[in-house]
């Protein structure tokens, strides 16, 4: 009996440009953090936790839970409601425990990783309820970052970019913001959004298109102002990974 989970390999693990394994990078991050106090900031804390998780240190899981369970539960509760969120919360943290190598501190903050995994798990559950799509890969592996997660750039740069996105979203109309949130947070289809907001599907598509164009324009402008043409943000990094 074979599972046919969504079997798309994680491109992050087959990239020629990555010389080290995630575990090796985690150790490098820890060593870098230990080398100087100026680097002992949040990403390195995440790296230490990642390493301790790989070393099967249960206290590390407890710390991760204490730090991030509220944020993860908030997302799950929003997407699934209370009862299913409780179960999904356990799922997220135990999966991190069972597959600590799936988290690469060089690519994302631990909180971001867990939030994306939580959303992925929640949408999987909703799909399972609708009986439309399988959930896992053939070997049961989990793909919290199925394609390209946040890249190997400074986490503060990631955070700045997302802050710019939120600022750009706040410039949109309430209807546009709601449409974007339904699509990219709640995971509703265009048709579901159309039904919920009582507008034609075409309107949903045009709102999303407009919103994304606006975000792109804001980010491009910010990128030009901050770093010059050689800095293409995560897009540049993604390009490197895929080579």
């Amino acid at each position, binding site marked *: 009996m074979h599972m046919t989970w969504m079997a798309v390999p994680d491109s992050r693990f087959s990239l020629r440009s990555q010389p080290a394994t995630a575990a090796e990078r985690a150790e490098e991050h820890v060593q870098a953090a230990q080398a100087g106090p100026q680097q002992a900031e949040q990403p390195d804390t995440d790296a230490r936790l990642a390493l301790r998780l790989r070393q099967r240190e249960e206290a590390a*899981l407890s710390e991760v839970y204490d730090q991030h*369970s509220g944020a993860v539960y908030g997302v799950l509760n929003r997407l699934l409601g209370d009862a299913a969120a409780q179960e999904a919360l356990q799922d997220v943290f135990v999966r991190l425990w069972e597959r600590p190598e799936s988290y690469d501190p060089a690519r994302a903050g631990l909180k971001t990783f867990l939030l994306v995994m939580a959303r992925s798990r929640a949408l999987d559950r909703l799909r399972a309820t609708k009986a439309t799509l399988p959930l896992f890969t053939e070997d049961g592996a989990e793909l919290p970052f199925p394609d390209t997660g946040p890249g190997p750039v400074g986490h503060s740069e990631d955070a700045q*970019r997302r802050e710019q996105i939120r600022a750009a979203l706040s410039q949109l109309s309430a209807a546009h913001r709601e449409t974007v949130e339904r699509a990219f947070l709640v995971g509703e289809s265009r048709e579901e959004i159309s039904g919920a907001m009582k507008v034609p599907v075409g309107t949903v598509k045009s709102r999303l298109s407009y919103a994304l164009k606006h975000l792109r324009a804001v980010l491009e402008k910010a990128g030009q102002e901050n770093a010059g043409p050689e800095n293409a943000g995560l897009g540049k990094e993604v390009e490197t990974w895929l080579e």
Partner: protein
Amino acid sequence: MAGITEPCDTVQQQLEERVGLGQSLTPELRAHLADCPGCRAHLTLLRDLEAALLEVVPPLEPPAHLKTAVLGAARQARVTAPAAAKARPHPSRRWWPLMLGAAAVSGLLAFGALLTPSRGTAAALPDPAVVVAAAGGLLVASNDQGGTLNLLRGDQVTATLRSGGRQPSWFTQGVRLGDRVYLADAANDRVLEVQTDPLKVVRSYPVPDGVAGLTASSGPDGGRVYFKTVRGAVGRLGDAGGQITVAREAGMPLADVMDGVLLSGGTLFVTHHLTGEVCLLDPDTLKVLKRVVVGGAPVDLAPEAGGTVLALDVKGRLLRLSAGGEVVRSWPLPGHPDKLGVNGSVALVTDRAGQLTRIDLVSGKLHPMPLVHPMDVVALPDGTFAVAEGSASGKGSVRVLDEALKTSWQLEGGSRK
């Protein structure tokens, strides 16, 4: 973006839909991305947007018991062999992911273990998952490493047995037939036939597709046990040639699913939760006589006096079905209950997320009762109910409730409360 080509336009729309819906990318999309910086940048924008939205969802403090459950589950995962860890769902997923790949397991090793049960020390009620009203007591099956079976006489454990198996057992349902109890073990794709006096596993029936539901009925020929597999096949234990299927859809894997099977009024009722149907079969020929779309995801069945049948929809409904399978009444329920027990005019349903609900079938009134992890509920002949409460930490319990939800007694990890 200026100068965008038609293929890129299409690709970017697909990226938007897939990121929005949390779906992975197709090989075709990946191939395009490998050669297209513009589309890669678009994907990055979408990923950043997703993260930006997630980060501003207000945090919410989870219930305090969940941390204990997470750490307990992690501890359990630590002691599980790698192969078993892959095949067995994490304890928080209290429904067996039925298409999990452990299915090919069978017979010889596991069966050998059954006939000579492990001599290891078995704990009492380590992680109760199924409770069955057996002859003279309760048989409780736990989802621990050894597949522990405990026999309770009153509130005392009188016999304990490790059922063994190639994988750690994952019991999902049990039924009684005379002095035997049949237990569905989803992890090992088998049904165990258990004798209770003395406690002994007497036979293992392999169910290669994984067992999703069971029912038993006595008759002049000694009784039958019907099962449904996760792929939708329905058959009788010990009758290898007599299976039919109620599944019409293509072989879509089913995740986290069980189904109800019930012989009532000379008709075999079988839920097919995937399509929201209840199928009515001839119990002798297994011919499908009728399919009734009841909607939702029906997962359990119980008989009522008068020939009606109660069906539990895990999406939050209790349905009364006529002898012909038609819905004649519906009660909305909170949460996602998946097990049902009925005594007269009182039904109890359990939601593994932490709630038991009493339904007065006359007045329609609902009474919720929070429980940590109710896995199974069974109606007892004296009008009470027994509830199996699981625990990843190895200290589960069995609780007996009267029809007013007052706890008559509770046995937890070997100590009486």
